[in-house]
């Protein structure tokens, strides 16, 4: 069970969170202007990163807020968490 740092509440066990998929995928502001292919990419295409992955979490059973996390998918280390709207902080990849 991961230990996740909620930017609002601090370190909490994974039990309190729900996962929200890849982060920084903004909903297009004018979907009508997109081709079918562009829209399908937005809908379905996600990266499957080996290494640092920016992803959304929600502190569902706590403050209920969404935030973003940088997780190393090779070892499940959560390297940083930050609030919605903020840029991901620079982190060093942990050695394999």
């Amino acid at each position, binding site marked *: *069970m*991961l*230990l996740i740092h909620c930017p609002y509440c601090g370190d909490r*066990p994974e039990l309190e969170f*729900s996962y*929200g998929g890849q982060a920084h995928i*903004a*909903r297009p502001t*004018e*979907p*009508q202007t*997109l081709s*079918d292919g562009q*829209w*399908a990419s937005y*809908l379905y295409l996600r990266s499957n990163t080996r290494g640092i992955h920016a992803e*959304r979490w*929600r502190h*569902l059973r706590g403050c*209920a*807020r*969404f935030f973003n996390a940088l997780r190393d998918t090779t*070892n*499940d280390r959560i390297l940083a968490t930050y609030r*919605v*709207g903020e840029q991901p902080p620079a982190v060093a990849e942990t050695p394999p």
Partner: protein
Amino acid sequence: MIELRTEEGGSIDRRRPVSFHFDGQRYRGYHGDTLASALLANDVHLMGRSFKYHRPRGVLAAGAEEPNALVGVWRDSRTYTPNLRATQVEIYEGLKAESQNRWPSLTRDFGRINDLIAPFIPAGFYYKTFMWPRRAWHALYEPAIRSTAGLGRAPTGPDPELYGQRFEHCDVLVVGAGPAGLSAALAAARSGARVIVCDEQSAPGGSLRAEREALINNELAGQWVAASWAALSAFPNVMLLLRTQAFGYFPHNLIGLNQRLSDHLARPDPQQPRERLWQVRAREVVLATGALERPLVFPGNDRPGIMLADSARTYLNVYGVRVGSRVAIVTACDSAYRAALDLHRAGVEIAVIADIRAQVSGALPEQARQAGLNVLTGCTVQGTHGRLRVSAVDLARVESGGAVRPAGRLACDALLMSGGFTPSVHLFSQSRGKLHWSEALQVFVPGASAEAERSAGACRGLYALDAVLVDGDAAGCAAAQRSGFLAAVAPFKVEALAAHEGSFAGALPQAAGWAGKRAFIDWQNDVTVADLRLATREGFRSVEHIKRYTTTGMATDQGKTSNINALGVVAVELGCTVPQIGLTTFRMPYTPLSFGSLAGYARGDLFDPVRKTAIHDWAVARGAVFEDVSLWKRARYFPQGSESMDEAVARECLAVRARCGIFDASTLGKIEVVGPDAAEFLNRLYVNSWSNLAPGRSRYGILLREDGFVYDDGVIARVDPERFHVTTTTGGAPRVLAFMEDYLQTEWSDLKVWLTSTTEQWSVIAVQGPRARDVLKGLIQDIDLSAEALPHMGIARGRIGNAPVLLFRVSFSGELGFEVNVPADYGRAVWEAIWAAGESFGIVPYGTETMHVLRAEKGYIIVGQDTDGTVTPDDAGLSWAIGKNKPDFVGRRSIQRPAMQVADRKQLIGLLTVDPKVVLEEGAQVVETPGQTPPMRLIGHVTSSYHSAVLGHSIALAMVASGRSRMGQTLHVPMPGTDIPVTVVAPVFYDPKGARLNG
């Protein structure tokens, strides 16, 4: 024959004799004995039968690694635990235990036939046989195999015991209370860090429990252990957990511990849990898990009476039990000499110490020679004798050229062996730390850590007592410092024998003629050297594949005694080194864990929360039959007398259509959407238009996912200009709220909107039927119920008695209908008031089943029943709901994609069976022509199907390809042995014009 129990010594309490039963026979032991030590004291070595060949097996070890002595243990008829290791079962007065995997008895076992046919059932035989005749698989092979599969017998009744669970936090968790663990714990405790120490045994000390001579800081090791434990107990910042197995190492330093609380007690307090599962989040971890002795692999190495040398020493020094009266020893490691010397001093005759090494020096062998023991170097074992107990051992000489020649037979009643020690790296490896092959020790030791942990002592290959204590102390200091405390190393003064040296992995050298004899690698799964050789001959190379093909290292002991020897054999066969092969993955649990412990309190009534409405007890008193809808209990129907469900539902349906029914709709999800941008927020989410919805009106809303498929639906009322009352499906409320929060927080955080779940704040009482207005007229204050003042989909605020009412004129039945929303605390009282007012109008209570029939007669869908996550609004016939002038809403772009608009999408239609009495199965497939055999082209499926009492025939809703262009067509529903002809009709069966609704 000598008395096997010593006169003194050990940690048993000789003043407290204990009697217990094994396989129906009564034995005596002492308080402090394990089942294994007590049986050995009674000269019982035979404790089990092996899994595959049913070979008689004795106890091999003295601890968690025991592969042979698996027993079933019970206290009374309701408690039975299979597959416990006799070496870990503490006896108490009246304990009952039995051996496993034998019939009719341990000494005469019918399954022994497997041993006689062993040449025909090598590793993987089941992959190659049982292939023909094909029909015999189900009738013969599978039942026969299943009856022999598995170890032990599972208990059949529910487990009456309690199991606890706890979360805990600490700065330093020390796993293991041997010398390394104790010195680590003392160092961390002195620093002020919060420390937890756990050990699987009933007493602290680990390897020191069997130590008789070593001095630590001028006191005997046993005294040092007792003093250290007492000192630790006195620290307020230290928690000590005995009988507690650290079974799993999970990410971010979460360690699972399982504490056995009552299994060792003769009369446990029934209020006390049997076991407690701890989930400990530690800042830093010290692994002091010790090392396990390795068996040697030679023909006939599995007879009862053959066991690990250091385990024999443990039985002698901890339990005061001599494992035999004339003992032979075969070893590759000095440590066996220590066992030989202790046994010799206890009066046991040492027939021989056969050391496979050509030359042996060092303090321990020297002492053995001085004591006059018969030490033979360059000597191995070629075979053993004895059926239910070893009786003799065949020795052989390994000559300098490598040739092996027989060297005579020696009688013995126990044979001890030692192939050196294997560090217990299980938890380290589970933590994803990288193992490192030590050339010097010929074992895997912990390398780079992945978590905040460090290993100390024997589990990283240190065996000298002074080095172990210093290492533990340093690890405890480092762990405390890393978690923010000041710690200082302590000095140790140790007088003990030097570390033992020597080890061996793989099969011992054998003379040519002995190849046919079976030498066991894995005792528990009956894997021999020949099985591993077969696997490599057949082309297996990966150790993971070899494990699965031969089953070596599987079963309940997970290869604790076998893995390194298996690697040794495979390395020789493949001509490579052990580190080139690598280890199989270590997985939790270290020792088997009871399901009860994992389940904890989450059983029976506590398995899941139960949600009940304010009206629940009224329905119970009325004899309602309930169904589970998500976590809710919902009244399904209200049978009268001996009515069946169908009869009750038909009566309830007719009453609603003719007069009036009352229905508890409180479980509907409710979300209040409030704020200046509430209408805009709903515009962006739901397909409908909300800006033009006047306060005091409501509208049926549809919510899509971004991929264009229907996600939820419900009536949304505009209570005030900036306040919307959103209803959702009963099961959908949490996910719809999460869906809304997601968009609000991450996409449209500029909108001023607040979301609140109000599901449990409101009781919702549906009053439906042509007399509904008459029922409510006398009750409702401040609301004009006339069709002009409160038309269909109108809402109004008023009162019933003292209760504030939010009244919706809505209908999910197709009749004139109202939904009375009152604060939940008033729910029961208002329900009873409406009930009392309705009785003169013939009101009936109805349940979810009738609700389903009524809505299906009107063709109203239920999201999740008639839709399945691949249905667009147009598929469901709901495109009328889509706001035409909205530039965007969630899912809009997706329903414009070409695939969402093709003509042959499945569409919602009605089906009428040609025979009106036949009710279709929900989920049944629909095809175009009858009499087909599979595979056939399936064009749709039935989603809802009921008998309609008011129409006098069955009705069904279905999703069928191009359904709306098939009106009037005859299609077929294939069922086993028949095809049911059906006619395609519009999905509204009753009052299609809606005259009743608007009445």
